[in-house]
């Protein structure tokens, strides 16, 4: 559930191209560093020692100076050639990033909020669209075209195992295309400082087989499950009647707020509060009672409900697979 969060563990073609570029850069730079340090070490080792009182050598020995000049010229020529090689490697990787075929892409609208991610799948098709938050599911092997928008300040989308960053800038729209080639859970985190809780704005991408993805997708498009026992029914009633519904939406109920993550299928997500707490029954109840304890500054206020009501809300939300 933790997810892989590592630029050196690529799971898609773009991250792989970047990984190759990184390796090339690392090798070339290490060699350059080692050669330069070796030259310095040899110079230090071979040069004679003197004291402050020694008179300075003003008359250069022509042969020695010529040898030094040759070394410097070769050094600069070598560095320039290596830089040129790296430059072309960089351009090549850049092309690889934008060469992802986009046929049959999954379309997602991703909106950055302080401090969570709002996602709308297939936004152009009213038959297919549904909303979720902080956790994306994508089919392995199919490109995903994500349209990025920011609701308030600048955020940055970054899932290192899939691809590099793209900023979400207010007033501007950008897109990023990614593809996961391996099944797995990949973690990402907002990478542009966005204020108070920038530290807790994680995004999880679950890459799964096309069959599992289709199952997940058809489940997401359904309205929320009906309560299956009295406690859950009580929980649903409370959600609809108390402050929960002011901000959160649960499709199929009267809760229709749009200021906060959609909870229609919240039980299927691994984390709450954009990576703030794991979605376990105990932590979920604590989160609902006082989210500020885990994520100070989050918009969700502490709510004042009796213990059994809290248990009912938590049980109901826990049933929303």
């Amino acid at each position, binding site marked *: 559930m933790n997810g892989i969060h*590592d*630029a050196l563990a690529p799971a898609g073609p773009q991250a792989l191209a*970047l990984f190759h*570029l*990184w390796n090339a*850069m690392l090798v070339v*730079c290490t060699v350059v*560093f080692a050669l330069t*340090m070796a*030259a*310095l070490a040899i*110079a*230090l080792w*071979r*040069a004679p*020692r*003197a004291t402050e009182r*020694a008179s*300075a*050598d*003003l008359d250069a020995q022509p042969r020695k*100076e010529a040898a*030094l*000049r040759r*070394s*410097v010229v070769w*050094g*600069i020529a070598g*560095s*320039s050639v290596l*830089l040129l090689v*790296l*430059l072309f490697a*960089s*351009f090549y990787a*850049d092309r690889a*990033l934008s060469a992802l075929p986009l046929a049959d892409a999954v379309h997602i609208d991703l909106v950055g909020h302080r401090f969570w991610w709002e996602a709308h799948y297939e936004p152009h098709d009213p038959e297919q669209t549904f909303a979720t938050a902080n956790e994306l599911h994508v089919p392995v092997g199919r490109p995903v075209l994500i349209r990025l928008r920011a609701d*308030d*300040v*600048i955020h*940055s989308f*970054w899932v*290192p195992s899939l691809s*590099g*960053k793209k*900023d979400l*800038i*207010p*007033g*501007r729209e950008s897109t990023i295309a990614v593809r996961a080639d391996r099944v797995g859970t990949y*973690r990402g*985190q907002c*990478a*542009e400082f966005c204020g*108070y*809780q*920038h*530290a*807790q704005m994680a995004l999880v991408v679950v890459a799964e087989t096309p069959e599992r993805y289709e199952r997940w997708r058809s489940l997401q498009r359904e309205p929320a499950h009906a309560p299956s026992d009295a406690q859950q029914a009580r929980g649903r009633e409370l959600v609809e009647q108390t402050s929960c519904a002011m901000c959160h939406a649960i499709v199929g109920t009267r809760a229709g707020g749009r200021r906060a993550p959609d909870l229609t299928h919240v039980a299927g997500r691994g984390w709450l509060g954009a990576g703030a707490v794991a979605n376990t029954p105990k932590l979920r109840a604590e989160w609902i009672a006082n989210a500020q304890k885990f994520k*100070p500054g989050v918009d969700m206020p502490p709510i004042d409900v009796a213990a059994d009501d809290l248990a009912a809300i938590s049980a109901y939300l826990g049933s929303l697979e």
Partner: protein
Amino acid sequence: MESVGALPSRPRPRKRARTRSAAAAHRPMVRDGDGPGSRAAEELERTWQEKPGLVGWLSINNHKTLGLRFVVTAFFFAGLAGVMGGLMRHQLATANSHLLGPDFYNQLFSMHGTTMMFLFAVPVMQGFALYIVPLMIGTRNTAFPRMSACAYWLYLFGGLLLFGAFATNTGPDAGWFEYVPLAGPQYGIGKRADFWNMLVTYSEAMGLMVAVDITTTILKLRAPGMSLRQMPLFVWASLVTSVMIIFAMPLVMLGANLVQFDRMLGTHFFNPAEGGDALLWQHLFWFFGHPEVYFIFIPALGFVSAIIPTFARRPMFGHDAIVLSLVTTGFLSFGLWVHHMFATNLPELGKSFFTAMSFMIAIPTALQIFCWIATIAGGRLVMRTPFLFVLGFFFVLMIGGLTGIMLGSVPLDLQVHDTYFVVAHLHYVLIGGAVFPLFAALYYWFPKVTGKQLGETLGKWHFWLFFIGVNLTFFPLHILGLEGMPRRIYTYGAETGWEPLSMVSAVGQVINDVSTLIFAINLIRTVFFKKERASADPWGAGTLEWSVASPPPRCNFFALPVVSSREPLWAPPAEVTHVQGLSAQIREGLTTTVIDALPDTRYAYPEPEIWPFVAALSVTIWLVWSVWSVPGFVWGLIPPALAFLLWYWPNKKEAKEELRWEREP
């Protein structure tokens, strides 16, 4: 010894020759040219004395005092910012740490960056230039010392203002880059961003004023014979930096003011909902912000180029190549700013140009590194603490420079941008490229400034601990960045796996603290307890600052030197050694031509005055007032207007005296 005779007084309007000492006006004229102990030297000492009392102390405009004030104040602020850095590493040493809350942490890193960039790095380099450049080029003061004095007070008040704001929980909290809209009217709460905008306006005004002073000093007040080709490399570095500052600083002043207008007056420069653009700020900021790195780095290259020849006992290999590299670096540094914005949706082809530029700027730096290594290879080495710090500079800077090439590549930058990889890179560049040379420079010029040499043993301990500490603190951050750790997060969960390396980094920070403590002990021991006095030229160096006593007399030179080589002390001029015949009773000097440094006109340095202090104070009142009230932005302009009017008010008596000195050469 021969000397240039009394210079023909050219019938040219002289600058303000201010002398309020009526006695000087009626005594028979004494001309300079004789060495220490002579009548002329005594008279010069008297002429360059500071006025007594607090007013005198506030009025001082001698470049040495100003330079020292800049350096000491900058180190004071750096100490505070260093403590903030230590707190942050302590907070991040463990996962889910609750030592500091998000609000305080955000203020901490914003203050750390702002202080280190605006209140430490730029002023400390300018302070060194103010102190060393006039001595190195053989003049008695800078060209516009009152402007630099005003700049110092602006800087001090600006810094105190910022720390005062921080102490009252109003410190900036949107980073040292203050991206809008986070710092804009809608999301930047309270007065925090306002104080940042004010501080930036301050420090940029300071930087500009000092840069203008240094540029003019270098171009017009060099010793006769010090043509541009004979000019020491440190002076070249200062010149390049100052010209860059003049071009880059106005951009960020403009930007900060536009943000302030958005916040204060409700303009919409950066508000996309009203037709503004959030990305515009990034262009304005980084067009200044990238050259800013080079304002810090290029003077440091100058330090290295000043120190290596002394400790290799030979002139610099490839002097001309180094000069060209400095100038090229200065130009290229203006073409890199977009590499801070690769993750935005700018056109991809355009970004590739910036990749090419970012790679290209590595070439002049590589050339300098090779020339330095060649100098070392062709010299005889004196292993002293300043030289050790230069060697440390090679190691640390090389790592920072190579990761810089990685960051310059668009695709790779997309992975590591805004992660701890960048934190590692920038600390390697700034500590390796600036702090190591800065310590080298401190150890090197300390005897010149104080007359006492810092302890060698403690100096070596300081170096080795600092070297180990810096690498231990910052190397692991590269790996953390690749493992996905973003910058500017106040905490992280244990599931991320970032804890062990963060702990290593925190341990490195403790080693840095110990090394800084050793440095402080060395300073205190040397300044307060050491009896042994340093000679005029304790390192056997070749440039002009070492020709005068340590510490130098207030007027620097009893006779202005004449120069005919790059290292005048190693190869003294054969014929003419110094200028003779300037007045010893007013603060008189000599201007020379820009390129060849041929004697041009006599020049009277400004006398010390209280007005620079008053002007800086009145500007402070204006800026603080304008933070709290919009009308204050208008009415607050009255005090500075008055102060500057009075400062420049013509004085008939002085004008008459000027005329007298003009007619009577």
